[in-house]
């Protein structure tokens, strides 16, 4: 339990730092909601990798499989990352958008996870980013009361594919590197 708590706390801290640092970088495209979303690397990481508590690491590494994880871990990290990140950056109004996008992405990746291998985590990155943007656009439609904001969707899909491939690949390389290292240690 303590290990898991520390693990979640460390991942949340990393996600918050990435989120805050990314908020300092000016967005080159003046379209609301379009950004790299580097903190999503941590959410993806949490969905695809957890330190084996009950299961021996040796056994998991030998099987060369992704350890099964709970979406609850990723949701916990997402929730605290959004809460702490928005408090630190002073953008409380963005809470609804961040949470809606995050939950949409989480559910989509959780489902997509069943259809990909460990060398296709980048696919989940893309799917997550697209659904993150869809979630945000739906909330924007509700908040502004203007359904025709949906016209932003094609731009959001393009942005989602590009940014999702980058963040997904980052998560994939990190996970594969850690698993590779564990295999060597064993």
């Amino acid at each position, binding site marked *: 339990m303590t290990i898991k708590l520390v693990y979640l706390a460390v991942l949340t801290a990393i996600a918050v730092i990435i989120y805050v640092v990314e908020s300092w970088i000016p*967005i080159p495209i*003046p*379209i*609301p*909601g379009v950004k790299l979303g580097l903190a999503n690397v941590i959410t993806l990481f949490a969905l695809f990798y957890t330190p084996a508590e009950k299961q021996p690491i040796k056994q998991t590494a030998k099987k060369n499989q992704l350890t099964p994880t709970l979406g609850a871990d990723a949701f916990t990290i997402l929730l605290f990352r959004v809460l702490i990140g928005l408090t630190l*950056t*002073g*953008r409380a*109004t*963005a809470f609804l*958008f961040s949470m809606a996008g995050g939950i949409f992405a989480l559910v989509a990746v959780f489902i997509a996870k069943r*259809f*990909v*291998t460990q*060398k*296709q985590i980048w*696919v989940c990155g*893309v799917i997550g980013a697209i659904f993150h943007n869809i979630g945000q656009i739906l909330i*924007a439609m509700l*908040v*502004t*009361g*203007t*359904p*025709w*904001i949906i*016209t*932003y*969707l*094609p*731009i959001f*899909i*393009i942005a989602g*594919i590009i940014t999702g*491939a980058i963040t997904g690949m980052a998560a994939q390389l990190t996970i594969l590197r850690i698993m590779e290292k564990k295999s060597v240690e064993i």
Partner: protein
Amino acid sequence: MKSNKFWMILFGALLVVSGVATFLMIDMPQAVYAQIFIDGALVETINLSAVSETKDIVSHGEGRYVRIVAEPGRIAIVETNCYLQLCKRQGWRNSGVIPIVCLPNRVAIRFTSANLPDIDGVVG
């Protein structure tokens, strides 16, 4: 499990379709009317072709501050108190299906070629 090639083709096709759709939506003939929505309500419709001198529209209250300026043939959000200032950075616009949006302030500007009533509002 699908191969990497499958996913690349799928996302590539999605990229092309979205790119074409975006291009078509941006490359629209010049609009005549700009409809300004605040909190989902249509507050003003401006005939851009009939604007002869600069028109200032300021909305403030409930933490919101947005200044919209209409000039002959074009409109822009020129001042806002939102964090990222993305709406302001969208600059002067005179057409397009894609609206100017300031999400934190819940302000949107839609372009239309005809002075239509707020259809969405009627339906909603």
